[in-house]
């Protein structure tokens, strides 16, 4: 009910282009410009609402689908400490999904609707999770690179104009930076280990490097949503700025590990103090985005399977709750 009501507020109350609408829109933009937070009950342009729903739900789905490649190693973690840390990490990702679904719900969509969109294949999630985790080193690489890139993307969102999203992100970033350190620590143990372990770490870096730097999205010249999102302060930096920042931080870390980033053109430009890097193969990015990556099919299949297999459990919980309500009413 609550979410439905909010939804209609966005769509029906203000005919686009009306004088009243323009005045509200101007006031809205002034608040955003003044760095005020927009809250669920405040008026907001429908496009702002839809942009946030799209972005937050994609983010939530990414957390949930992201549990799969890492969860893949829980039963095989090489020590009990690593097992415990990995379980806690995957659990955190689920928790992030939960806050983010809740943040999106304040915009007029239910978690159920969002999950239906994910399962139907109409909602997107981060393409990075369509790559497989083939060895234990991949768990390290995912923490180090994927969580590292995610943090770079997400720290600016802590200052996003939409209050619930910004607040969810503060907590998420804190946990993600912990995960990133844990991932780096796994890589460090491998890099300092046997020749086989170092090879395992290098192979993981070879496979995860390019997909990780693609996580920042298309180049600024190609990005459809950047300009408007920046005006609304949903986004604070462009894709290319964030990618550059990530590479500048990560390249010396790879050096410290004694691993080689698989980009022959990567070098530090002494003048600008930035790392220059080779051309990104965007055709691969597009292919994975369109569903043709190595694990798109498996990831969605796993989500659909869990949802379908869990149907009777969710029905049981609902039926029991209903019986409890009826019994309480009868007793009263």
């Amino acid at each position, binding site marked *: 009910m609550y979410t439905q009501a909010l939804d209609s507020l966005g769509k029906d109350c203000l005919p686009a282009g009306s004088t009243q609408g323009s005045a509200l829109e101007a006031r809205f933009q002034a608040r955003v410009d003044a760095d005020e937070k927009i809250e669920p009950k405040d008026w907001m342009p429908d496009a702002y609402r839809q942009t946030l729903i799209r972005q937050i739900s994609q983010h939530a789905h990414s957390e949930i689908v992201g549990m799969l490649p890492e969860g893949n190693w829980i039963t095989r973690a090489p020590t009990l400490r690593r097992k415990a840390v990995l379980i806690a990490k995957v659990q955190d990702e689920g928790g992030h999904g939960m806050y983010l679904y809740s943040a999106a719900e304040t915009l007029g969509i239910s978690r159920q609707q969002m999950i239906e969109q994910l399962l139907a294949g109409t909602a997107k999630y981060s393409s990075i999770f369509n790559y497989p985790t083939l060895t*234990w080193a991949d768990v390290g690489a995912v923490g180090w690179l994927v969580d590292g890139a995610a943090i770079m993307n997400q720290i600016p969102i802590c200052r996003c104009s939409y209050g619930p999203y910004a607040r969810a992100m503060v907590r998420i970033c804190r946990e993600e930076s912990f995960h990133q350190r844990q991932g780096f620590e796994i890589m460090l143990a491998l890099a300092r280990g046997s020749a086989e372990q170092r090879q395992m770490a290098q192979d993981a870096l070879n496979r995860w490097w390019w997909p990780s730097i693609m996580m920042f999205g298309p180049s600024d010249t190609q990005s459809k949503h950047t300009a408007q999102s920046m005006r609304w302060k949903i986004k604070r930096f462009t894709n290319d700025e964030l990618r550059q920042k990530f590479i500048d931080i990560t390249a010396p870390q790879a050096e410290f590990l004694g691993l080689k980033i698989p980009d022959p053109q990567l070098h530090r430009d002494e003048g600008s103090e930035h790392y220059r890097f080779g051309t990104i193969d965007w055709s691969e990015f597009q292919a994975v985005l369109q569903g043709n990556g190595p694990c798109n099919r498996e990831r969605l299949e796993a989500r659909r399977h869990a949802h379908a297999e869990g149907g009777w459990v969710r029905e049981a919980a609902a039926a029991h709750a209903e019986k409890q309500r009826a019994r309480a009413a009868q007793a009263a």
Partner: protein
Amino acid sequence: MSAANAADEMKGQSLNAQLSNDARLRYVLRLGDTSLVLGQRLGEWVGHSPALEEDLGLANLALDLVGQARLLLSYAAEIEGKGRDEDALAFFRDAPQFTNLTLAEQPNGDFAQTLVRQFLLDAWQLEIYEGLASSSDTRLAAIAAKAVKETRYHFRFSSGWLIRLGDGTEESHRRAQNALEGIWRFTDELFVADEVDEQVAAAGIAPRLADLQPRWSAHIDEVLGGATLQRPASIPYPWHGKRGVHTEHLGHMLTEMQHLQRTYPGAQW
């Protein structure tokens, strides 16, 4: 007392200490292995549960159980005194050296099977850890004091689900009852004391299993009543997981769990 008598008595005491130390080691290993094997099973669910909340709940249980296993196996390694540690015990013993309760290693099956297995073991661990709180072994008492808090939550989670499933829909009731019928046969082992259990009880290290059974049984009946489920008739097959004789399932679980350590022996992770 003559010198010879005193010497005999000392020898007797040291033999007793040795016996009870061996029993203590075996007892602590059993507890640690049961937590580890159950935690490993729950870890298989993560990312695949019926709803996000249950994914978080099962992961939480898995995490607690692996944590308990780490404390218990580290302690076992110390008692053993052969330079092994928690990982050596977890990853370099084969199935016959694992001494978990047979119930813990049973496959996850559907959500009902997992929850019934969990419920029966939570109720058991709850009694054990409460009993260990007054153990003469202060290290074990401290581990149990931490574990009992976790186990109370586990029991609330699993018994809550058992009631939801039993009282929910026809399908969930049928699945829960089937699960109960399927794994009830492993519950006798929970309370059949062998010489290890007797020695640790006699030494004041652990509670007497026979004293715990009525309370466990009452707990089980109370929840089954709320869940409208029938307690299966007891089928006393003498399972001996805690003596290292397992079902076929454990070997497969260990193959997966121990794969990295076995493939790269000596590596640090």
